[in-house]
Structure formats: C-alpha cells, structure tokens
C-alpha cells in the first residue's frame, strides 16, 4: 500500500474562488464515454485490469458470514481459471483490490481471506454509513472498532450537512479526527456527491477531504439516489490533479455505486488514463466499488472469444 496521506493545513483559499463550469463538464463527460474503444486483445486486457481495481462489496442488511465467505473466495478467484490460462494470464495472480463490508462483518471477511490465502485488504465502511447522521463520538468509535477487527481500509462518510451549510473548518476537523482514529489503516472518504447540491460543492468537499488526510476520495455510498456519474468524477479527479500540483501528493479515487457493466468499467479506466495519467492506474490509487460488475466482466463474450483465439494460437504453436 502507498504511504498514508498525512494531510496539510487547512487552506480555504484553495476552494474559496473555485467555480465549476457545469456545461463544459457535461460535454467532457459525454465525450469521454465514447471517445475510446478497446477492441480484441486490448479489451480483454483492460477488462482483466478493471478486475484488479474492484473493491468487491457487499453492503446489505442480510449479510451473514456465509455470503461474506463466498465474496472473499470470489475476490481471490475473480476470473475462471481456464479463461486465464487460455489468455496466458494465470500467473499474474489476478485478484480484486479489496473486499468491502459492514463493520460487523469485518471479522468474517478477515478470517475468510486468511483461509483462502489471500493477502488483499478488507475495507470497512464506518461513521454511520450511509447517512453519517450519528454522533461524532460513535462515528469515531466505529472506526476504531473496525480497525481493531482487522480492517486495513476504512470507508468513511462525511456529514453532508457541513458541506451544505458551508462549515468547511468543521468538516476538515471531523475528517482529521477520522484520520487519527484510523491509525495505520487507510482512509477513504465518501463524499456522497449525489447529496452535495452542486459540482462546485463536490470540488470543495474533495479538496477539504484531501487536505484533512484522506488517502482516497470516493463518490458515493451506493445508497443515494444518484451515485457515481462521469461529471462528478471529472470534477473529483480534477481536484485530485490540483491537489497533486499543489502538494506533490497523489490521492486515490474511487467511484462507487451504479457501475454495473463491463463497458462502464472501461470508460472509467479511460477517464483516469486521460485525466490523471497511467500513474493513477493502479490499485493503490484507483478503485471501483462494485458488487455486480465482476460477474458482468466475467460474462463478457470478448474475454471468452479472445481466450478461444489465444488457445488456438497456442495450440498451433505447439503443433
């Protein structure tokens, strides 16, 4: 894992004059989805890469140890062995980036991953997920307990009311305390962008979260009406870029919620490549929060076809 972001002093001048040009963001978002197409081997390779960015997630009221166990197994073996073999990718060790569960399921997940011999981290949501409308004291306690249980990454939600009322100092202090409570665990801050009111607020909240020491900024809980969208993502990655230019620190980005199809995942990768560059295309700096995306990727015809084509090629070489 990348070293932690220790944050910076709060500097409100970084956000005070920011204005987001929404029509331009929308046009860029529209363009980014159609601009690049990946075909053949490229598509297969990109899809497999997308798998390695997934925070395989289950956040349901009916989660039990058994389905968490299944999830962890899937995280270790996300793609069928025979397909990987056919593509000559069996030795790469493709796993998802992490599994993400509720705090009460962290123990189950840690154990299950240990059982299958998988070293990927367990991420836990915390701080009154998904609304964040609980007392600060209990929110902090939630983080500590999840870390005690073995979570290596904590996905915290911010208190949206602080953004909507413009209490940036308070927001900064809260996240700062989250950071402290995390200890050695990584802090991923969920902005719940669907409830922030405007793209300008999304930018400001992103900046505050990074200044306060988040290792990742994350779009949504998956529980809001509007989740990860490309316009919001563009604003957030531009904030990441600005923060990098100001401080030299690379902060990760995690879109979550509503990313269900393999085609979507390719567009997300393409967005990161175009806006932040190849350096960000690694699990330390880019994650996709998803529960059903993986099965769609595995279902992709293209992977199968390429696997078959590659198989034939290998066959003919042997002959």
């Amino acid at each position, binding site marked *: 894992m990348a070293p932690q972001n220790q944050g910076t002093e709060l500097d409100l001048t970084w956000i005070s004059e920011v204005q987001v040009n929404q029509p331009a963001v929308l046009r860029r978002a529209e363009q980014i989805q159609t601009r690049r197409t*990946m075909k053949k081997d*490229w598509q297969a*390779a*990109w899809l497999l890469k997308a798998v390695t960015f997934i925070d395989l997630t289950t956040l349901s009221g009916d989660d039990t140890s058994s389905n968490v166990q299944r999830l962890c197994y899937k995280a270790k073996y996300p793609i069928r062995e025979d397909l990987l073999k056919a593509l*000559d990718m069996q030795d790469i060790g493709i796993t998802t980036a992490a599994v993400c569960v509720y705090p009460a399921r962290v123990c189950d997940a840690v154990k299950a991953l240990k059982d299958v011999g998988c070293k990927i981290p367990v991420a836990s949501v915390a701080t009154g997920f998904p609304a964040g409308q609980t007392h600060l004291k209990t929110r902090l306690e939630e983080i500590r307990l999840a870390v005690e249980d073995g979570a290596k990454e904590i996905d915290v939600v911010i208190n949206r009311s602080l953004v909507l009322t413009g209490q940036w100092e308070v927001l900064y202090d809260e996240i700062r305390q989250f950071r402290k409570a995390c200890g050695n665990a990584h802090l991923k801050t969920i902005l719940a962008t669907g409830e922030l009111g405007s793209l300008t607020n999304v930018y400001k909240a992103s900046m505050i979260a990074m200044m306060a020491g988040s290792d990742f900024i994350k779009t949504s809980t998956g529980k809001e009406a509007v989740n990860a969208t490309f316009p919001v993502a563009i604003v957030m990655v531009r904030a990441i870029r600005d923060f990098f230019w100001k401080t030299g620190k690379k902060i990760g980005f995690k879109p979550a919620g509503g990313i269900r199809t393999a085609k979507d995942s390719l567009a997300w990768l393409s967005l990161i490549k175009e806006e932040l560059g190849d350096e960000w295309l690694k699990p330390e700096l880019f994650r996709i929060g998803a529960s059903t995306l993986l099965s769609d990727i595995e279902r992709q015809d293209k992977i199968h076809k390429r696997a078959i084509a590659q198989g034939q090629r290998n066959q003919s070489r042997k002959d």
Partner: protein
Amino acid sequence: MAAAAAAAAAATGAGEAVTGEAATGQSMGKSSVQSIFFSLDYGPAPESPSTALAWLETQGPNLGHFVNGKWLKPDGQGTITCRDPSSGEFLANCFQAKNEDVALAVDVAKRTFEEWSQLSGATRAQHLIRLADAIHKHQKLLWTLESLASGRVVREIRDGDIPLAHQLLQYYACWAQTQEQALSGWQPIGVAVIVLPPTFSFIEMMWRVSPALAVGESGLAREPLGPGWGCLTPTTTTLPASWVIRSPHPTLLSSHWVSLMGSPPRSSRALPGWGAPQGARGPCRDGELQPPSSVQVFQVGNASQKSPFFPPTLVLGLAPASPCTQREVPWPVVVISPFRTAKEALAMINGTPRGGNASVWSERITLALDLAYGVRMGTVWINSHGLKDAVAPVGGCKETGSSWHGGPDGLYEYLWPAGLLPRPVALPEAMDYNKFGLSAPPVLPSGPDTSPPSQTAPYGIFLAGRFQNPSSRSSRPILGSSGTVYAHVAEGGAKDIRTAVEAAHQAAALWVSQAPGKRVSMLWALADALSQRSQVLAEQLTEVMGVGITEAQTEVMLSIARLRAWGARVHAQGAGLHSAGHQGPFLRLREPLGVLAIICPEEWPLLAFVSLLSPALAHGNAVVMVPSGACPLPALQFCQDVASLLPPGLVNVVPGDRDHLTRCLALHQDVPALWYFGSAQGSQFVEWASAGNLKAIWVNGGQSRSWDQEPEGAGPELCLRAARTKTLWLSLGDI
C-alpha cells in the same frame, strides 16, 4: 496527440481491416493480453475504410464531375490525384474541369432552376428531408470517405458532422415548408455558385448548399475533394464580395501549408480572442516553428515524430504586434497573451484583423457579457467554445469576411427582394482599376447662380456637424432643368473624405451607446424638421430635376414617411434569444457596422438619400454619404437640420465627383462597410477594391431601384444590410 493518434489509427486502418477477427498471423513471445495488461495502452481502434474504398471502386480510378445527376467523365482531361493525407495512399483521381464543363453545369443548373424554383415550398421540404434521410441511411459511407479524404478522426465526423448535416437539411426544410409566408418578400437569386477552398470539408459544403436548395436555388458546388475547377475565377469576381472566403493562411510554419478542417475538441480552452478558424488543422511535413527568441513554444509529443499533422502547440509571450499574432492561427496552435485589464484584452482582440469567433471565460456575468458584446466577432461563446447548431448563424466581420451560413442569415445569402430584377450575371468588363476615379476632372465656374434667394442651399462640405470649406477650394456647378447654372456646390476630395471618416468614427462610438429610444426620437425629430422644409425642397427638386411640383411634393412626403418608419423600427431589429437544445441558448444580436459609407444614386436625390440614411442611423451606424451628383442640393439643405438635431460627425455629406469619391471610400482601410448605388462600372470597382480590404459591400450593379416603392425603398433588405449579426452563446447550467 489526438491528431497523431488518429493519423496512426487511420494509417493502420487498411491493414487492420484485412487482418480481421481471427488474427491468426500473430505470434509473440509474451501473450499480447499480458503485455497490454501491464502497459494499458490504447489499441488501434480503426474504422475499416472498406465501405469508402468499395464505393471509390465503383467509380473507377477517376471521379467525374457530378452534373445533372450523372457522373461525367470527359475524355482526355487532366486529372489531379487525391491521396489519403495521413498515409499518402492513392484514393482517386479528379478531373480538372475545363470551361465547357463548367458551361454545361451552369446550363443544366439554369434549366433545373426553372423547375425547382417553381415547386411549392412544401414539396422542396420533402425533397430535403429525403436527402437528410439518405445521409442518415448511408452515414457510414460518408464518414469513412470523409475521414479517408481529410485525415480527420472518424469520431469527429461521425458524432459531429453527420448529425449536423442531417440537422441542417431538416432546419432548412422547415424554412422551405413555410417559405410562402415566412419569406414572402423574397425570391431566390437563381443559380448559385459556391466555391469552396480545397481545405473545406463535406459539412462546410452542406452549410451552404442546404439553405440554397431550400429557397429554390440550383447550385454548383466545387468539389472539396481536390483542387479542381481552375477556370471558375472569372465567375467569382462577379459575386458580391461578401462571398469572399479566405482560406487559412500559413502562419508560424515556414514552408508549405495545406490546411485541413478539423473541429476543435469541445473542451478546448482557447484564450478569448483566438478566432482560430474553426479548426483548420495543418498537416506539416517539414514545417518548423520559427518564432522570435522571446517566445516560448510547447508542443505535445516529439516534433521529429513522423506525423503528417502538426502537433498541438502552445505559444507564450508573443507580442500583440508580432506578425504571428496578427495572422490567423491554425488549429491546433494556441497563442496565449497576458492582459492586465479587461479593457486591454478587448483592445487586443479587436486589434486583430480577424472577426470570426471568440470565447470569453468568466464566472462574472457582468464582465462576460460586457466582453462578449464588445468584441467584434461573428460568434462569441461565453464559458464554452466551438458549439455549433444549424439554427445559429455563423459568420464574421473584418478579414474573416461577411458571408454567413446557418440560421436565417445563411438563407438570406441566397435571397433577393421580390420584385427586384436580379443582377445580370455577366463577366466583368475589362477596366483599368488603377485609373478609375483616380482624380476628379477640374471644374470651372460656368456662370452665376440663378436660384432664387429662398431656395439657396448652404454651401460647403457637411463635416463633423457643420458646413466646411472643401479642401479643393473649388465648386461644381449644378445645372437646372433648363440647362442654366442653378447653383454651385462645394467640390469634395480625398482629404474631405478622410476628415469625414475620422469624424464619423468618433461619433459612431457614442451613437452605439445611445438608448434605442433616443434614436427613435432623433429620427422623428428629423422627420418633423424635414416637413418644415418641404416647400423649399419640392421647389429645388422641380427646378433641378425637372419633375412636376406634385411629384416633387410626393418625394418629400415619402422621405418624411421613411424617417418616421425607420424610427419606428429601431426597436424591432430581429435580435432575439434562441434555443439550441442541450447546448444552451444563444442570442442573435444585430450590431451596427460602425462607419458606413453610402454613395447615393443619381435619381431620387432626396428620397434615395433619406431612404438610405434612415436605416443606417436606425441601426446605430455613423455615415459618410456622397449625395446625388445631379442634384445634391436637397441633401445639403437637409443637413442644416442634421446639424441642429444630431451629434456632430454622425452624418457627413461630401458632394463632388462621384467616381473619385467612390474610389477614396472603397480603398479606405478604415471604412468597414460601403453601399454603392451608381454605374455598373463603379459597382465593379467597389467589388474589386473590397477584395483587398474585405469591407462589407452592397452594390447595385448599375441597376436602378424604385425608391418610392415599399419593398425596394424601405424593405427588409435594407434592414439586413444595415447591421451585422453576432451570435452570442450563453452557457447555462449549474444545478
């Protein structure tokens, strides 16, 4: 980078297409999926050009002239080879047309025009829609062919040009459908010749062809594929100069430069004022930047890379006076210059000879609108760049030329006031442009004035609000209808014209900022003042022009009516807010031309003068006028009221030798627009002169107009000519 990538994609296109899905030929040491997994490169995503190539195949190696619905392939003609600009591969040959080919095409177009223009608007609309549908159905052929021939990325054409072409045909079909009502005062010009530079693409042709077809024109378009049709030059000079389309110039590049059209990416951030031609993209083979040493140049990618296209380039620190700044900047070169205040930025932008488009970026709406109104450009985008829509007119001013396409303005380019005979299309006469009106013949006193004291007109040149002595210090006799000298008027010359233009420029700036209501009251006050003088004016007209007193009185009454009518129209000049779908709304503004020079016709000395003056003033222009040569007296008489009612310099009247004064005005670099009503030869001279300084002109080609008739003397054509359109895109959305 995009350009280079696209070129690479296009270059590998052909090979990739044949390889096909099986890809059995590959054999690499490491699995290719594995290497891509680690490098995360974009693979080639070529669009197979097979559709386009198959179509070219059906045409044989030679593309003919498309005349009368058939491909004509005349024998024994020279050809020009069209190549794929990114790979240099042969695509097809185009014939070099000869005079007889053009004559044949013109003939066919003339015949077709008879039928086509007689069709009802609704029928024409159906035809246009059918054409639009054909584009929709065969779009793949179109975009692959266009991409192949221009080297542009398929995406730009597929997602931009093709839908736009469809939209254009549909939009103008709407006009055709309602033509009988919406365009009742207009008729089609006839056969339109559209000459496009070799760099112009399919969509550029569609911008111009669609409206022409809609209003019942039959057209000839020069094929954008290759540099054919060399012999069209004589025809082009008979076109109004507003049609002059200048192709982009070579700028920073040292040697040859063939520009290609390419739309700028929508998210581009050009500085305000960079009227970069909508994406003229220059391929460069051995061109290198040779800027002054103080200039910083940033380029994407390695300049030595073998790409047929110029890389995206950023130039910093170029002084506004540098020749590079003054010239047109091709896409994708962006020049960034710092400015201290918004006022300075405005001065820098308006200081360039270009008037195409600009974008203004500011979150302060007061500042953004102020700048957008202030820049002299055809299109201004606020907080956006490069938006296009069939409904939004695109054009410009200054060196960009004043022709329009898109929106209603694109339509009027092909229309002519109903009832007026179209200008005869004739090859220009041989004339010595260098001698036309070079100097005024000397005038000698030829007898005493015989006008009665009550009819004595004021003496002098009307400059800057008062009558001044002519710089020539001589006078010209005006003969009465009986042949005796009626009066003498001052003889104006080049120096008076210069003073007049200067005075007009000063007055124009103030007049624009006047509230429209103020203009109304001034025009109406002039009408009242004129009616006070009606007796004297009518007498002068009878004495000099030899018309009956009733006719003379009618002329005066009509003149008064004109002033009132144009006063009333000040508030209704066709400006308005339009919607362009999800791209946001835009304003179609009508802005004054600035200083307008008007050479009045010989006939109707008072009525024509007032009919031309009133729309010019109503639209906010300042004028320099040359009155009728035979009878300038009523105009000068009228100036006495102008002196007392209007700010000085707004109206300047210079009597004298018309040819000489026309020459002075037509060649004046600081007169943005000129209307000429006189001889055919004079019109030809004005057209020739305007090709040098690109002023907006309106000439009558030696044809007379019935100034007493409503459509010709006070019709919508005057309205159209007296102001210039500006399209101001407003960016919208923050919720």
